[in-house]
């Protein structure tokens, strides 16, 4: 594993993608969710497909999460934004990057885009929204319930239950419960050892003017029964360049439960904003519905007069099919072994490649 010092903390970074591809490949930076999430949620879903599609992908564990350092305090959204700013510097990523955030990671992506617009080429928010008053209340209430009104050992059960209610596919079976219980233990450690539950609700929030001035293209990916429908509808109305796609039948955990669909629709949307438009100046809202080629997978886009918009899975075969063969030499980064590992001897580096 690669540890990179950024924001004064050691961050666990994983990277998949072409290292020496002709020209500069577009860079996607993935931001995972809070408490029970780590970079693994992208490492085993979107990132391999992005890499096979010619993207340079950067994943990292947020402070306090996964294998990154867990400081006792400093868990407001702006603290995470400062970490990302420092991480991009440490990795030498000076060109604008494409942010992909899941849940709380999407909240971080919006904050970063508002405060560092020159570093963001596009923003994909999977089941997430900017910090706002409703968001803070919901987050504070949930955290209060988990940490104040429940005995310590029941906070774990609360996370198990909470995750169960937002998962659309598996509930109640022993294997699933055991996995959620392990995740809950990690969340419990984070909550007990740090100020995160107090810090997150006290984060700064973007103003309406700041959001309206967000110049980069934004893709909202929602589960049909997700947690941010109201916020997403509002964003669609106020953001200058915003498209919203809903994955039917899924809840908040759509990223890990429908990875193929999320990968396909995200890559398709990003293709519009990278390959044909290297500088994202074209409003996505001006694009015709026909740019999304296949209605066979009926995602819906409220606010646009069409019933279906998603892309065929076959368009992105590499990395999206379990156990599929990827012979060495056929993927863009096949000649660059162990992209997550080669700098283990240099834990603090300004050039982690």
């Amino acid at each position, binding site marked *: *594993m690669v*540890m990179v010092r950024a924001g004064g903390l050691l961050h666990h970074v*994983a990277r*998949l993608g072409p290292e020496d591809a002709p020209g500069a490949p577009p860079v996607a930076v993935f931001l995972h969710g809070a408490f029970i999430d*780590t*970079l*693994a*949620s992208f*490492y*085993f*879903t979107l*990132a*391999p*497909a992005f890499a*096979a599609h010619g993207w340079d992908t950067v994943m990292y*564990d947020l402070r306090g999460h*996964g*294998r990154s350092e867990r400081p006792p305090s400093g868990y407001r959204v702006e603290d995470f934004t400062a970490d990302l700013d420092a991480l991009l510097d440490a990795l030498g990523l000076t060109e604008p990057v494409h942010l992909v955030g899941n849940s709380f990671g999407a909240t971080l992506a919006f904050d970063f885009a508002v405060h560092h617009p020159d570093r963001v080429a596009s923003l994909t928010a999977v089941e997430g929204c900017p910090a706002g008053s409703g968001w803070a209340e919901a987050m504070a209430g949930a955290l209060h319930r988990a940490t104040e009104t429940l005995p310590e050992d029941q906070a774990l059960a609360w996370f198990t239950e909470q995750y169960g209610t937002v998962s659309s*596919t*598996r509930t109640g079976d022993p*294997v*699933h419960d*055991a*996995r959620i219980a*392990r*995740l809950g233990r*990690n969340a419990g450690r984070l909550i007990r050892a740090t100020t995160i539950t107090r810090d997150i609700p006290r984060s700064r929030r973007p103003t309406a003017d700041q959001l309206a001035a967000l110049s980069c293209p934004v893709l909202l990916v929602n589960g049909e029964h997700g947690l941010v429908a109201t916020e997403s509808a509002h964003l669609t109305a106020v953001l200058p360049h915003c498209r919203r796609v809903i994955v039917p039948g899924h809840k908040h955990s759509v990223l*890990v*439960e429908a*990875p*193929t669909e999320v990968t396909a629709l995200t890559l398709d949307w990003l293709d519009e904003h990278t390959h044909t438009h290297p500088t994202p100046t074209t409003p996505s809202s001006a694009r015709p519905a026909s740019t999304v080629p296949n209605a066979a997978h009926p995602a819906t886009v409220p606010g646009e007069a069409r019933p279906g918009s998603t892309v065929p899975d076959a368009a992105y075969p590499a*990395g*999206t*099919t*379990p*156990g*599929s*063969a*990827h*012979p*060495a*030499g056929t*993927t863009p*980064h*096949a*000649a*660059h*072994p*162990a992209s*997550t*590992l080669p700098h*283990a*001897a240099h*834990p603090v580096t300004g050039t982690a490649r």
Partner: protein
Amino acid sequence: MTSTDPVRVYSARKDAAYPPPPEAVLAEVASMIELILHEYADGLPEITRDTRLGDDLELESIDLVTLSGLLTEWYGESVHLARFVAGLDPDAIIALTVGDLVDHIVARLAPAAGE
């Protein structure tokens, strides 16, 4: 990283025959898992083909990221856990056995794998 870093410890032992037979792969994968779980070595069951990564070893998905890196470092880019399991949901990944990993590695290292 310190001297207990699994990558560096394992890389230092990189002297085996190539391509390795399945029994050797099993032993090597078991070694990697033991390195990842070295903090919990006392409670580890014997690692066999039937050992489940999640239920038996309690590997979390972030542990699998580390294992993925070890596998690629050791066997080369043709063995890549992320691509092997891409598209599986987390529960299916956690349900994998050590034997599943060994079979994948052996298949990818075979001369007929289309290298």
